[in-house]
Each structure stands twice: as structure tokens, then as C-alpha cells.
């Protein structure tokens, strides 16, 4: 049955508890599992844990019963998404079960023993690889971010309408994992990719039979066929058993549940790369094949629905990343962008990977507007929303990397201020 799509407010239980704004019209069904788990009673703990034996080892670990982070599910239908709770996370690695999702035909169930990858087109040797074949090739592991190109659209188009928006609601479509797989260049050499091949089609094994055209140059650069994430086989939501992974590029091009690669001398003009993931521009044009994610940073603490309980020292924390290599600098402003100071970057600063930034801040109890902006190794500086408007128009779609401001009110409550 097709479910009627509803416009639902992106609000978690925690934000409702924060109780800042009364506009959160959330039904129990609206956020699905979030409601079921967050309604639980507080777990119990012994008065003194040193006076009794603890739990015995277990085959599979779980989080502390006191920790219940959740992805935010927007709409319960196959072509939808769920968002990573960025404000909950520390460091840069996203736990695999909290990695954001974006599907175009739901999550398929694929038997790894029957899995096959077909490679054909402009190759000398059309070949079918089983999963075991792919795993037998030399592997590589890379810590890399993956971001949906629509991430941040809520913030871009908000224009002050809502203040009760969390990083998860606005920017939860980005995550970082350690991805392991075989370099695509090795596979393409193996099948004898012809020099005239300039594009390849990547096709999924889901109900959308999702397809994207990818420039061959990316295959010769750093694309991988990934079969593991944070040390274990890919999660089903992330493309189990094999996905294409294109570091630094918009997430949808890293086609999941990969079943076919076809090499050609022109792109294929699939639905996703024509009617969907294109960026309208002023002057009656639209940008096509806008793969690279430009430099971006966002504050994850303090943000809505957080409330600073006392004035004094706080650490402003956030993440920054760029699809064009390394982040070289993140600056933080606490006065709405008048003055900027460098934040500390947590080493190692890896290319095409989230980097954690931190800046100590003494809050004097007065209202303050917090911002961050990133610079990458090409000299690109994260723009303001107005700069992006000028370049692309106020209703362009995708690639929203504008600066996100946060307002700390004198009572300590933090609101989105974009």
C-alpha cells in the first residue's frame, strides 16, 4: 500500500522535552521508532556498583541503557531518509547504526552468496565478480565523510521562520566512517577498461534500480568498491554487501547495493542526475553533475535544544569537511560574524573526512550569536547564505554549505538563528 505522504515536523522527543517552542505538532507515528524507544522509563542502577558483580560478557554489545541516540526518520516510506544525531556525537566516527540513510526504493535484502557484480561496456573482458572475488583483491581502508547533497536545505530555506531546529534536523545527512574495499582502478584494470571510456553507469539492486553516471576520472583517482564500514560488513542501509564509494562526492552517486558497472563514452542521463540532483542557477540554467561537496562546517555544541545551565567556560564544538581535500582552518565567531578566531583542529586532519574543531569560550551570560566557517586547501572559504543566494539563487536545490548561526539567549537556551 502506498502511504499518503504527510508533511511532518522534524522533532525528536528530546526537543519536545526541551519545550522551547509550542509548534511541534508531532504524532506518535510521525517519528516511528523514536517514539517507541524514547518513551521508556529511566533504567535503574544499583546505589553502589562496587558492592555487586556486574553483567557477564555477551556475544554482541549494546549501548548503556542510559544512552538512547536515534536517527531521525522523516517519512516512513521507501524513498526517504533518516538523519544522524550530530549533536550527540563526539570525535568524527559515526557509529554504523547511526549513519544517516537516504534510499530511493527502500532497503533491499541481498544474499551475499548470490551477490554478483557485472562489469561490461567499454572493457576488453566483461566480467562477473562474486563477493568473495572482490574480497580477494588487495583492499584499502579510508576514513571518509559521506553527505547527501540535499543536506542543509532546511537551514538554507528557513530564513528565520523556525528557531527550534537541531543540527540533526538540518544537517543530519552527513556521517563519517572507515570504509574498506577494493580500489576501483584495480578492478577496471582487471577487466581491461578501454582508454575511450569516459563515464560509467553505476546501478543498484534495489527497487529503484538506482543509477548514476560517474566520470571515469574518479575511478582512476580514489573510488572504491566498499564492502565494510567501521570494521564490519556494510550495514544493509549502507549498501550491503557492496557499494560504490566516491570520496568527497555527493552521497547519491556512491550507489549502494551495486550490481552493475557499464563503461561508456558519454553519460547516461538517468532520472537522478537530470530531474533530481541538479542545481538550478540564475539565468535559467541548472548545473548538472555537481558531484563535489564544497567546504562546510557546523557547530554541534551548543545548539538547539541545549541550554547552558551556567555562565562561564564552555567549549564550542563542531565538525568541518570538504570534498576537495583537507580542511586547513576553522574560525569561530561569538558575536554574529564581527570578529573571528581560529578554532583548534583535532589531529589527524584527513582529506575528505569530518574533522572535529573546538574553541574554548567564556560565556558572560548575555545574548550571543555563534558561527563557524571553514577554509579548505584550495583557499575556498565557507560562504554566508547571502553569498550562496547571489551565486545560485535563493531556491536552488542541493549543496547548501552556508554558515549556520546559533543564538544563545541570556537564559542559556540555544536556538537556530538562520
Amino acid at each position, binding site marked *: 500500500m502506498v502511504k499518503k505522504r504527510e508533511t511532518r515536523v522534524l522533532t525528536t522527543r528530546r526537543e519536545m522535552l526541551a519545550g522551547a517552542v509550542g509548534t511541534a505538532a508531532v504524532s506518535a507515528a510521525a517519528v516511528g521508532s523514536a517514539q517507541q524507544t524514547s518513551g521508556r522509563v529511566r533504567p535503574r542502577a544499583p546505589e553502589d556498583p562496587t558492592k555487586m558483580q556486574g553483567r557477564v560478557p555477551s556475544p554482541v554489545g549494546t549501548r548503556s541503557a542510559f544512552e538512547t541516540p536515534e536517527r531521525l526518520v522523516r517519512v516512513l516510506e521507501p524513498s526517504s531518509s533518516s538523519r544522524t544525531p550530530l549533536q550527540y556525537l563526539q570525535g568524527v566516527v559515526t557509529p554504523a547504526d547511526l549513519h544517516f540513510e537516504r534510499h530511493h526504493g527502500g532497503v533491499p535484502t541481498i544474499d551475499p552468496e548470490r551477490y554478483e557484480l557485472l562489469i561490461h561496456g567499454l572493457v576488453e573482458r566483461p566480467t*562477473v565478480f562474486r563477493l568473495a572475488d572482490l574480497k580477494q583483491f588487495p583492499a584499502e581502508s579510508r576514513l571518509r565523510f559521506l553527505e547527501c547533497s540535499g543536506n542543509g536545505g532546511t537551514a538554507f530555506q528557513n530564513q528565520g521562520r523556525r528557531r527550534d531546529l537541531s543540527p540533526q534536523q538540518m544537517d543530519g545527512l552527513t556521517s563519517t566512517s572507515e570504509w574498506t574495499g577494493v580500489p576501483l582502478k584495480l578492478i577496471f584494470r582487471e577487466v581491461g577498461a578501454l582508454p575511450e571510456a569516459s563515464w560509467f553507469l553505476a546501478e543498484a539492486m534495489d527497487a529503484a534500480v538506482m543509477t548514476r553516471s560517474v566520470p571515469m576520472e574518479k575511478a582512476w583517482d580514489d573510488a572504491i568498491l566498499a564492502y565494510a564500514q567501521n570494521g564490519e560488513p556494510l550495514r544493509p542501509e549502507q549498501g550491503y554487501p557492496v557499494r560504490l564509494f566516491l570520496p568527497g562526492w555527493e552521497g547519491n552517486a556512491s550507489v549502494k547495493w551495486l550490481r552493475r558497472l557499464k563503461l561508456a563514452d558519454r553519460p547516461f542521463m538517468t532520472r537522478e542526475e537530470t530531474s533530481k540532483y541538479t542545481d538550478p542557477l540564475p539565468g535559467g540554467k541548472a*548545473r548538472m553533475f555537481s558531484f563535489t561537496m564544497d567546504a562546510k562546517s557546523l557547530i554541534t555544541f551548543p545548539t538547539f535544544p541545549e541550554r547552558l545551565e551556567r555562565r562561564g567556560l564552555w567549549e564550542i564544538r563542531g565538525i568541518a569537511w570538504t570534498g576537495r581535500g583537507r580542511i586547513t582552518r576553522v574560525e569561530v565567531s561569538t558575536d554574529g560574524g564581527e570578529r573571528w578566531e581560529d578554532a583548534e583542529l583535532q589531529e589527524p586532519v584527513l582529506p575528505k573526512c569530518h574533522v572535529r574543531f573546538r574553541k574554548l569560550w567564556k560565556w558572560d551570560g548575555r545574548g550571543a550569536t555563534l558561527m563557524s566557517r571553514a577554509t579548505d586547501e584550495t583557499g575556498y572559504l565557507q560562504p554566508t547564505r547571502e553569498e550562496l543566494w547571489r551565486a545560485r539563487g535563493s531556491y536552488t536545490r542541493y549543496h547548501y554549505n552556508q554558515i549556520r548561526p546559533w543564538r544563545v539567549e541570556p537564559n542559556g537556551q540555544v536556538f537556530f538563528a538562520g
Partner: protein
Amino acid sequence: MQDILSTSLRREPLRRASPSGRSPARHTGPAAPRKRASRLAAAVLTALGGCTAEESSAPSAQPAAIASQPAATGLESAVPAPSPAEPTPPRAVPGPWPELHPGMPGLLSEAELAALRAARERALAEIADLPGFGFGEPASPERIAAWDIEIGPDGEGLPAGRGSVERGQTLYRLQCVQCHGAQGEGADYEALVGRVPGDAFPFSEDRRWLITVGSYWPYATTLFDYIRRAMPQAAPGTLPADDVYALTAYILQLNGLLEPGDSLDARTLPRIVMPARDRFVSDDRRGGPEVR
């Protein structure tokens, strides 16, 4: 977020100069779009008439080739039986296909081709010390044919078959109305129908306009490709080629790009020039200080 955008867009009805009428696309604006629509329809009709010679050879040869192959060779058992979920698609019609228009994004310039060659050389040099591995099995033509379903912007890959606007209307009422609305105006899912007056392209500045097949999609072949691989939602990838041609024809007709009575096949579909075809440009962002 595409979801957010399309949801919010749906709240605003598509602006129409006249609210009534059989074909919404005919009523999105004054003379300019109508002229263009009929000119396009005329171009397609010309194509329909103009390629009868090709058609008389291709489609007649095609079904015969498909029908005769297993019987003539007696190799049915040697050909792997397609699984129920993966019906072998009808064989693609052989070319020639129309030329790609020169402004199509993704056609590489000489400089880009040189960069590609350099990237390839660099990559092969990096892994030059690694031996060949010989893993995997050769893919047979039958194995490739079972999955080789995509349609190129020039029409390459289109199967034999044909479908009319009228047949498409019947199928649409049975299979598509619930999600896309009685006239393609959108319902549970996105709108398929609508043109902007003058076929303008105001999407970066004005959110009142719906992104539809008629207002935004640059290639008609994409419509065929997507319907065949992913529609209808309850039984994706099950429509025979004739039905996909018919649905494609009907949706194009609703958008004012075909006339009632028209039909589509492998020769005519790739010759349709969509209103937004020339609106698309390649990515010109290159990093550095400039915001683009």
C-alpha cells in the same frame, strides 16, 4: 533535501493561465508555449513519418530475431533461465541512433579528454607493481543482456515495441493515478505534468513552479528508462516495453509534447526535443576563493 522541497512545492498549485482544459500543458501560458508545443509535436510527427523506411527494417527484423533464436538454435537449456524477478528484457533495437546534441553536459572537451588520459596513466602506474589477479568469471552475452537495461540520451538500448497515447492513458488510469494524480498533477508523489509559460526556467528564484517532465526533464529517454526500471511502485520493473512506450507517450502528451493519436517507439522517442534540454550546464565549481 529533495523531499522537503517537493513537499513544500506541492502546497503551491502550479500556476496556470487557464484552470480548465483537457491538457494542462496547453494552458500554462499564452501563445509562446503553445506554439512551441505544436512545433515539437509536428517535429515528432515528422520523425514518425520520416523514419518509416528504417522502421520497416528494424521492428520487423527484431521480433523475428527474438522469436527465432531459441527455436532455431535449440539451445534453450544452455541459456540460463532468468529468475522470476529478472525477466530478460526485450533485445535492444540496433542503431544507428540520433546524434547527441553538442551542448550535452558530460561530453568531454579535448582538454578534459587529456586530463582523463593522464588520470588513467597515473592510476595504472600506481598499481603497475601489482600482478593481474584473474578473479571473476567472463560475462556471457546472455548474462549481460539480462541486466543491460539502461537507455542512453540518444536512445541506445531502447527495445522493440510501440505504444500509443491512448493506450498510455488507459494504463495510467489503472496504475499511476493514485500517486501522480488524474492528470499527472501530483498526489502522494511528485507531479509529472506542467510547463512554465514561455518554457522559462525560473527554478532557482521562484519556488512556485513545479519541477515536472515538461518543465525540467532534459531527455525523453529518461522517462522511458525510469518507468521501465522502477515503476509502478507496487510492482517495480514489471511493465512490458509496449506499456512503457505507451505511458511515456501519454505523459509527454499531457505535457503538450505529443498529440492524441501519436505513438512512440525506438525511432521516435529519442528524437523528441524536451523544452528544458538546453538549460543544463556542466559543473564549473573548481574550489579556490570564488563562490559559485
